[in-house]
């Protein structure tokens, strides 16, 4: 018997990107939702900082215990480019990213 199964119920069959997320699916900006800087015009370099927003929230909420690579990457990049960031502690940077 042919039983049609809907896309989301069938994760073993990974599907094309659009189907996986687009049909009334997750909003594209979910990870930076609530951020004032989540306009579509961000450059690739800003993007890594905006992408770190969830990790920054976990870091702040857990007082530094949960530390994901996206936050690590954003801090690394900020310190490479921004002298203020080099002086700041990890927590200060995470809070700054969260407040973007």
């Amino acid at each position, binding site marked *: 018997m042919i039983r049609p199964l809907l896309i989301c119920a*069938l994760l073993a069959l*990974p*599907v094309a990107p659009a189907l996986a997320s687009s049909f009334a699916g997750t909003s594209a900006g*979910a990870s930076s939702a609530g951020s004032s800087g989540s306009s579509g015009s961000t450059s690739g370099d800003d*993007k890594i900082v905006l992408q770190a927003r969830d990790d920054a929230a976990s870091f702040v*909420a857990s007082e530094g215990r949960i530390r994901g690579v996206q936050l690590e*990457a954003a801090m690394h990049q900020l310190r490479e480019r921004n002298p203020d*960031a080099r002086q700041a502690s990890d927590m200060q940077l995470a809070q*700054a990213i969260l407040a973007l």
Partner: protein
Amino acid sequence: MNLRRRRRPLRTIRSWLALCLLACAGQAQATLQLQPADRSLTPAQAQATRQLLDDAAQRLPPAWADALRKPVSVEWRDDLPAQVHGRAMAQRILLDRALLDAWMARPPQAGIEHPATRAALAAVIHELAHLYDRTPQGRLSRDPRLLDLAGWQVSPMRWGLRTSHNAFSDRSPDRYELDSPVEFVAVNLEYFLLDPAYACRRPALYRYFAAHLRASPTQADCAAGLVYLQADAGAGQSPLLQIDPDRVYAVDYLFAEGNDRAMSRWGHSMLRLVICAPGRARGPDCRLDLQYHRVLSFRAFVDDVQISSWRGLTGSYPSRLFVLPLEQVIDEYTKTELRGLRSLPLKLDPAETAALLERAARLHWSYDGRYYFLSNNCAVETFKLLHDGVPRLAGERLASITPTGLLRRLQRAGIADITVLDDPEQARRLGYYFEPSSAHYQAMFEVAKQSLHLPQSEVQDWLDLAPGERAPWLQRGDLRASAALLLLEQAALRRQELLARDELKRRFLGRGADRSSDDAQALAALQDFLRLEGFLSRPAALLPEGGYGLPQHDERDALTRESSRYAAQWQQQREQLHADARRWLPRQSQATLLATEANIGSLGRRLRELHLEQGGLQL
């Protein structure tokens, strides 16, 4: 029997003729003898034939010519079936007379680029390739490595036997090559000797033949790096991605963990390319250049609004190699599907990494396989990519039909390094493990509960509240509690989006769904969107017929133009679809989504205010 397909219909005139010639130039002279079978050629025909055979013999690498020890007689025939250019018998090759006529009709100074020159030389080389392949020195069409490169892939479900079908059918120079390994060798040797672009378009095969024959025919100036088409590059970015293998620091086996749902119990297999940011030297720091990392993921391309498990079992979905930004993959698995990702470095040297990328490019541009749930799924495709791309790995027992099985075997063979997971904290911090967002929901809730004395006891109770009921609490937390609440609010939004998606599917696809004009319009829009996506998921479809293998200079220009056009249209339709989908939802769901988004917005504002109040660092 070896048939040679004719490329153009040509008229034949006379009964068959033959001639004897001693190939008279180059290093091939010593041994290769192409001899007569008949004497009835006119002097002009005899001379033209001599010229053709000399030219062909001159191009043969010495190892090839030396292997053909016995004299070979060459006959011009006009009784070959249509579409057949020649045949190779035991010590005899038969060629279509029309090739000789066309060769003789060329302008006096016609070079290799003239179609008649090319066709006649290709026919002679093709038949000599068959003869060579049958010698003990040849035997290329039985070499497992050749079969890997050509596309008669090993099949884990068949005890390591090979598939009888070659699915590398897109961007083939001559589809006759797909007929059998024997024909593949003959067709490819034609191109190896006659087409300077062969080294650029099929680099791995070029290197294979060059090493085997100890010869290196002229190479064209190849376009730099490898290009791939990204189905979803993000707004404003070119979908055509160029990867320079020198900038790839590592390749990881990227494993999406299974979850409780029966169908995703075995996880998903992918490869992660750790690409360094421009200007950064290849080294461990590249692991943090996340925005440049890409994921190679084999997925079924589902061209319909709903997936049928029957179609999945019987292979009616194409299996395509998608190239995706890592960050998109992280979001999709850890935030939407709530599955963890393990990223385990594979022990490959730089040459092996380059070969693997090249193989991925060949798959990307030429492969048109079928996705089978059981026998040709993501694990099997990933295994074949490793097996065919890196000869060393072909010697390991890696074949597996599940992602967990492949993981275990890679680990056992010492190829995947799982020690990176030993220290969980470091694994998270350096990106060897990506946790599902749900891992900390309860902890986040505890943080908020402690600070705000929330009445709910479990995170689930909190998330089950209507967004309006949560809203007043969101303005009361300190920085820490607000950060925790933000994560929970986002979790609530994703959950509602999934519910909304299900709701729409029930409405549009469910049994007895009522078909209002709105619904018909929605389905039509979705089908149109999928059609567009089909183009972006089959890169070869964007290129005009004619070129083969990896795209070169002109083709890349055309690709940049075409793909940008399709991608822009696709983005636009996707946004439209999002907006429409919202409208099609019941009012209640619309309101819930809006209110949750408003909650997220207000939490964002609160976080900024608190940050400002405490004089925090401004970026």
